């Protein structure tokens, strides 16, 4: 009875201490743990889509986030691009975020190098991937690209005319890429759905931050064929391509944290229900 009451009214600092210790341990000892992540359908469908493509097929990836959301969205960007490069899928990169251009240029170069090291494929700029740069007014740009990429991007980020880039020859609009993947941290995700998919009906998948993900579930199966949400989604994708990286490094900590919170909630409820029962019995 006394014990139960104590659990029900446990000082929250015990929760803090426990969480602090287990989560930081799980993170610091991340190399000694591996977490078996369940892959969700919405992530698997993106993987399957890329897996079923033929070598030389093309994807448009739009990196619509800026460095402030880099920590959350870079892992999934990396994983998807690595998968593309491994399978020989060409990547057309664009950013609709004002501060995104420098960041995208950097990650493209890094992932190309990583793919070379990991799979020995050596993706080349202009042949296997290219970056067309940034234009303001995302809604307009998404509409314009439905007509022709050249409306807003006559030249790529390095000022080469698109038609001089082998990869872009004959690529006019969404009809000439197999799918669009929008990795976004804001309203651009809505624009991709409303102005991209609704008007031009191209296959669309989204990668979004964890907080945003719930808002886009309703579009699964009609407007978008896949959805990756935050670290968890990225970790699932890393698992699918069998290459554990940043997202997986954080997963033990995530799992342990969720488990801790769930356990505390359960203990609290058991204590609450039992103590209520015993007070009922007394009265």
């Amino acid at each position: 009875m006394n014990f139960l009451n104590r659990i029900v009214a446990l000082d929250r600092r015990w929760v803090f201490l426990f969480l602090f210790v287990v989560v930081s341990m799980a993170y610091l000892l991340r190399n000694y743990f591996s977490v078996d992540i369940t892959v969700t359908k919405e992530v698997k469908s993106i993987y399957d889509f890329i897996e079923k493509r033929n070598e030389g097929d093309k994807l448009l990836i739009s990196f619509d986030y800026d460095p402030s959301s880099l920590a959350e969205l870079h892992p999934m960007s990396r994983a998807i691009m690595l998968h593309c490069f491994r399978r020989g899928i060409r990547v057309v990169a664009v950013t609709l975020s004002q501060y995104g251009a420098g960041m995208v240029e950097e990650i493209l170069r890094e992932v190309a190098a990583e793919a070379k090291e990991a799979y020995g494929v050596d993706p080349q700029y202009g042949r296997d991937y290219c970056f067309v740069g940034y234009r303001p007014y995302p809604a307009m740009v998404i509409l314009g690209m439905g007509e022709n990429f050249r409306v807003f991007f006559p030249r790529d980020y390095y000022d080469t005319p698109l038609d001089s880039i082998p990869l872009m020859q004959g690529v006019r609009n969404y009809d000439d890429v197999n799918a669009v993947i929008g990795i976004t941290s804001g309203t651009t995700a809505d624009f991709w759905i409303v102005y991209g998919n609704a008007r031009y009906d191209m296959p669309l998948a989204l990668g979004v931050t964890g907080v945003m993900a719930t808002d886009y579930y309703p579009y699964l199966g009609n407007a978008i064929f896949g959805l990756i949400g935050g670290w968890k989604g990225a970790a699932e994708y890393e698992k699918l391509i069998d290459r554990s990286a940043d997202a997986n490094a954080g997963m033990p900590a995530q799992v342990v944290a969720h488990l801790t919170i769930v356990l505390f909630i359960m203990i609290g409820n058991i204590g609450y229900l039992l103590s209520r029962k015993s007070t009922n019995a007394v009265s």
Partner: protein
Amino acid sequence: MKRRVPLIIVFCVSLFMVIQYFVPLDSLERVYRSFLDYTIIIGVFALLLGIWSLCRVNYDKIKRKSENWQYAIITLTGFFIMTIAGFLSGWGRTDNYLYQHLFSYVLVPIQATMFSLLAFFIASAAFRAFRARSLLATLLLISGLVIMIRFVPLGFLSEPISDLAGWILRVPNMAAKRAIIIGVGLGAVATAFKIMLGIERAYLGRD
């Protein structure tokens, strides 16, 4: 003069803001953009009032030697060092050494850590409030638990739980959000109308 003129200003500016949304004229768009600039500029001028308030409150604390007055010195010192450093590197430039480093090694870590305290508070709030006290609290508890437990590898249970979580996110969660969003929309429009018409005028004070 004291009350009527401000109310007329509010009415005119509000009405303009409504009209410009529907009328695609360049001239209106230009005025609209400069109005937004104006508000930001007024905000910076007003910041001086804020700074004055900050300095006075802390100065008073020191002068009256009220409890914890020593810490007020830290606030004032931090503020003045940052401001002087910021304005020291020349008009329009913020590449002062101290300004940059205080930003990166004081402001960023403390703010980021403050933000990360949420990890703990979300746990303590869940522990305290997620109790099966009533039907409503139980629903809150169950839907929260299902979503969180998705993270935990549970073998053969993982898939049905993940499906259930997906359903909660797509169906009831969606309905709840829509209802609130639509209600907020109508409420905000009604309130903005009241402000425009001068019915809601608490912000002007009453004297």
